């Protein structure tokens, strides 16, 4: 397993006495585009937040290139800089322009020189089609545009894995497409991605692996052709029937 970037081992997470994740095992390999699907409350987002260490794990560990990031040996901020995250609610910095949103992490965390950071930020903003808006502030652009900037901000750190936490769920229907297009492009470029999503078409057409979660456990995982088309587990079948049925 030399090409595995992230390995999640026996991950459990409880809030109070409510177990959100129960002994989750899961591996992300380089170039994988993994869609995590499942009903609300099944622990998908928590899994993603645990991977980015936004939540502390109750038990279990996360290995990044076979090194534990939860043991306290690795600098957590340095690890986060290499694992990008895109949030449902964008979480852009409201006091900074679109360009500065994409520059600040490179400057402060990666200590990149200013012109280099600006050039890279512009490169990724162009990629997501937001180059004309570099002087705008987050409050002045639409939701879909914000999400594209958030993707550019994460990309500008040149991470090895990108985590997407329901990136299109807070968007108006007509803006979902523009964000998905960017994500498809990234997938085509072999970016390693882990996407929590309710967009079944994305899971089916773009991802290389689909994970179905229910009640804090991974019920089924495999290529989309298997999980989405001929699921083995009854719960997966039920979920898909409800989701795609009507």
């Amino acid at each position, binding site marked *: 397993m030399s090409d595995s970037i992230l390995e999640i081992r026996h991950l459990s997470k409880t809030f109070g006495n409510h177990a959100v994740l129960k002994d989750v095992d899961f591996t992300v390999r380089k170039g994988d585009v993994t869609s995590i699907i499942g009903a609300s409350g099944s622990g998908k987002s928590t899994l993603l937040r645990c991977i*980015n260490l*936004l939540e*502390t794990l109750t038990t279990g560990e996360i290995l990044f290139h076979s090194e534990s990031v939860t043991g*306290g040996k690795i600098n957590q*901020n*340095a*690890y*986060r*800089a*290499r694992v*990008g*995250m895109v*949030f449902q*609610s*964008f*979480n*852009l*910095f*409201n*006091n*900074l*322009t679109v360009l500065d949103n994409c520059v*600040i*992490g490179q400057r*402060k*965390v*990666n200590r990149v020189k200013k012109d280099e950071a600006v050039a890279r930020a512009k490169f990724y903003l162009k990629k997501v*089609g937001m*180059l*004309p*808006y*570099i*002087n*705008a*502030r987050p409050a*002045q652009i*639409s939701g879909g545009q914000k999400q594209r900037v*958030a993707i550019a*901000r*994460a990309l500008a*750190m040149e991470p090895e894995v990108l985590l997407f936490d329901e990136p299109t769920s807070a968007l108006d229907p007509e803006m979902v497409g523009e964000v998905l297009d960017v994500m498809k492009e990234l997938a085509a470029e072999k970016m390693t991605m882990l996407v929590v999503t309710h967009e079944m078409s994305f899971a089916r057409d773009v991802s290389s692996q689909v994970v179905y979660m229910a009640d804090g456990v991974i019920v089924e995982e495999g290529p989309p052709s298997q999980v989405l088309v001929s699921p083995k587990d009854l719960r997966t079948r039920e979920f898909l029937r409800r989701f795609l049925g009507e």
Partner: protein
Amino acid sequence: MLEQLFSDIGIIWAKYGTVYLTGIWNTLVLATVSTLIGCVIGFVCGILQTIPCAKGDNLAKRFFLKLLRIVIRIYVEVFRGTPMILQAVFIYYGMPYFFGMAFRDIWTVSILVVSINTGAYMAESVRGGIMSIDAGQFEGAKAIGMNHFQTMLSVILPQTLRNILPQIGNNYIINVKDTSVMFIIGFQDFFAVHKMVSGAVFKYFPSAFLEMGGYLFLTLLASFLLRALEKRLQGKGNYELVSEDQLVMTAGTYQFSGAAPYEEKSRDYQGEKP
């Protein structure tokens, strides 16, 4: 009656005008410098108080953070909960007992007292300001690997500053007026001038009239300037599009330069799109 008042004011002003002006100047300098230092104290307390403390951290760090919070809390409660006039006396006359030396410069001790008093109020204002920033921005910064201090300095505090500017203005105006209590340790502010002049010429009301007008002028000026600053910090309402690519469509803001790209007379027209 009124003529009497104005002629009295005229007499006082002719004789003590420059003294009043010096008083105003001293009041302004003391209030301004102390408010600025107080803001710095407040922001530092704000940053330190909000250092995240996770369950997984080691014991020494958690103990230190807890201690830090308690110290800040005590500082805030003590200096917010006692009169500034008493704090001035306490510090000015207390120094020789504790450190074996007195303040030689009345300015130093005055600025010190007003600053730490303002800092106690500001610490709470800043804490409130930080809490008003949505958690998402903290997470956004965390997710790209920024640490607490980087997040605070580049993302959170600039927004906090803008949000609590009305509070800072409040404190500044309060300081302009309340530095008058520093006469107790012999600071020559605007109000101390009134005590001196009225005592010398026995014209209490005309001098008080002057003082009222003077203070009101100062505070009105301060609120005007603060409003202007607030507006400036709000930033531009619009932004410039940087379109190197003429074909880029930018909803609602597209500038038609003669013809739209999809019209046949446009230079960029490349045939009918299917």
